[in-house]
């Protein structure tokens, strides 16, 4: 299970109106600053079941101090950087910090912690109505959807548009920290750099991504299987009828019609 998930989405927004006309030299220096502006969306997993299970190695309070230092570092790197924090709870998700709002300008840490506490209390109160069955999953899809809506809004209002290819392959970094004590160092060295500078860095590369699917019938992870052509349900064995959409499969399984050599026995079929 991944410990920390960070969706880091750099962006180059910000209005020209922020700067009154200056002498040419100074203007160029400011332009450089503007080009490196990033919007950083941080999704914090506040799932209490998870944090309880790792409290001996990294208590939540310590984790927060790492993250706060990281957020401060981002704002320190460039005054125009924007930081938005979304809490991913067990029962709900919510925005807890946005550095572009007036509340986010002063006393950032106090404001963030106060909002986080409110969020955790609310999240807990929602929990009581439901019987809890063990450490459940966090609502990452919800907070990620919110983050994407926010990014879309920034793109809408800004003069720049997302690069079509960039949205196809996000080019993000997945990192599982080895030593939890050094979390801040991981964050500042890997995630604090803007998109431009990342091209020059040797960032951790994924060691093989698992693109396998799990079948609908037994929930097994498979690397070969049968797909219903009507509803795209995945099965690990050949079926006569699709259990999802009820289609009856007319013919024998379409054994890759384009196989050039049928005689060759494949290792998986054997």
């Amino acid at each position, binding site marked *: 299970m991944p410990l920390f998930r960070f969706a880091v989405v750099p962006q180059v927004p910000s209005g020209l109106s922020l700067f009154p006309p200056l002498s040419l030299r100074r203007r160029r220096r400011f332009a450089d600053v503007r080009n490196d502006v990033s919007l950083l969306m941080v999704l914090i997993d506040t799932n209490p079941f998870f944090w309880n299970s790792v409290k001996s190695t990294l208590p939540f309070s310590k984790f927060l101090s790492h993250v706060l230092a990281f957020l401060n570092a981002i704002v320190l790197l460039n005054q125009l950087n924007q930081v938005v924090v979304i809490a991913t709870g*067990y*029962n*709900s*998700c*919510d*925005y807890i910090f946005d550095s572009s709002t007036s509340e986010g300008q002063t006393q950032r840490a106090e404001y963030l912690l106060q909002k986080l506490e409110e969020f955790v209390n609310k999240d807990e109160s*929602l929990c009581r109505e*439901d019987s809890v069955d063990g450490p*459940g999953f966090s*609502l990452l*899809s*919800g*907070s990620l*959807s*919110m983050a*994407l*809506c*926010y990014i*879309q*809004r920034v793109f*809408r209002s800004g003069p720049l548009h997302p690069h*079509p290819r960039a949205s*196809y392959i996000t080019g993000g970094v997945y990192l599982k920290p080895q030593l939890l004590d050094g979390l801040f160092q991981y964050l500042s060295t890997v995630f604090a750099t803007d998109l431009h500078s990342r091209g020059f860095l040797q960032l951790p*590369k*994924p*060691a*093989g*991504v*698992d*693109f*396998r*699917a799990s079948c609908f019938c037994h929930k097994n992870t*498979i*690397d*070969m*299987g*049968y*797909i*219903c*052509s*009507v509803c*795209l349900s995945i*099965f690990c064995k050949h*079926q006569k009828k*699709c259990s999802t959409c009820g*289609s009856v*499969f*007319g*013919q024998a*399984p*379409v*054994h*890759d*019609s*384009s*196989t*050039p050599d049928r005689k060759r026995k*494949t*290792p*998986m079929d054997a």
Partner: protein
Amino acid sequence: MLQKESNDGERRFNREEEEEDDDDADGRGHDAWERTYADERSWESLQEDESGLLRPIDNKSLYHAQYRRRLRTTTAARIQKGLIRYLYIMIDLSRAAGEMDYKPSRMVVVARQVEAFIREFFDQNPLSQIGIVTLKDGVAHSLTDLGGSPESHIKVLMGKLTSSGDASLQNGLDLVQSLLNQIPTYGHREVLILYSALSTCDPGDIMETIQKCKASKVRCSVIGLSAEVYICKHLCQETGGSYSVALDESHLKELVFEHAPPPPAIAEFAVANLIKMGFPQRAAEGVISICSCHKEAKVGGGYTCPRCKARICDLPTECQICGLTLVSSPHLARSYHHLFPITPFDDVSPSVLSDPRHLPKNCFGCQQSLLNPGNMPASCVSCPKCKQYFCLDCDIYIHESLHNCPGCESFRHSKSVSTAGG
């Protein structure tokens, strides 16, 4: 007397020529100061308000209304959709495609829209394939074979943009029909014809060809660029496709993009079947191996076929060695939203809008203020399942790109309700 008449005739002729020259000048060579008015038609983006003052047209609400119409047609009911599509794009590159009523010319505009369409098509139909056929000099030419890589199609198309001769609809249909006859029975066969010409120059009886297309279950759709042509309309009616004629470039784009989402499937058209597919794993970075598609040694990246262990550069594809269809689970997952679309959001009634106590201040998705300048409530929508409020921009983004309701996804209870319902 006779002399005078001929003189008159000559003069009249000359005058006609001059007028023609004038026409030409009107059509093409504007003075620089005129061009901004003639090309941009800036007056069309203005409208009068109640007091007779001019103001810019409210594009946002117009755009939103358009989107709602689109949404209603696509998510009307849970209709079976043809998710595995084999689509040929037939582009008319006859003399008529060189006409300059679209700027700079019809074929350039068509190519531009086709490029955008191909990207959108693969985004929405990751398991489908496209091929391109051109009509030129009375013959049909297969520009690219069926394939799943948008870049290769676009590259070839952009290199072949010249127009000449006549277009032959029959030759094009014959070619496409024979190509589509080879695809597996579970696939949906489609042709999208972008037709500039007003005629077709055929070697035989086109009606027979149309019947042949109908028999091999090829769905033919035509988008005309000039005017309605009977034979195109007849073709579409017979084969279950759609026929439309574009008014201008933006309308053309709209019409072309209507073909990106999968069309409702007709049960007899494709036999339900189980398809054997492999889910290759992405190889670790830094591993050197020779890929089977380009026959080149590559460092890192790429995928490994689970059956024959060959290296492939891109997904989805068919393994060059053993012929297994290779996809990744995200490709499948990205097709599921066509089967289980998220429910359209409801408009928030004005009575709720006028009561600020019920209305949250910000959009649930993007935190944008739901109040117009001057603290007047702006129009917004709400999800019927999770009851969260969203701004109109998020509404469009959620239904057209995200395919996830942030509200439903971020509450455990609404989530369990929605999964039980789905």
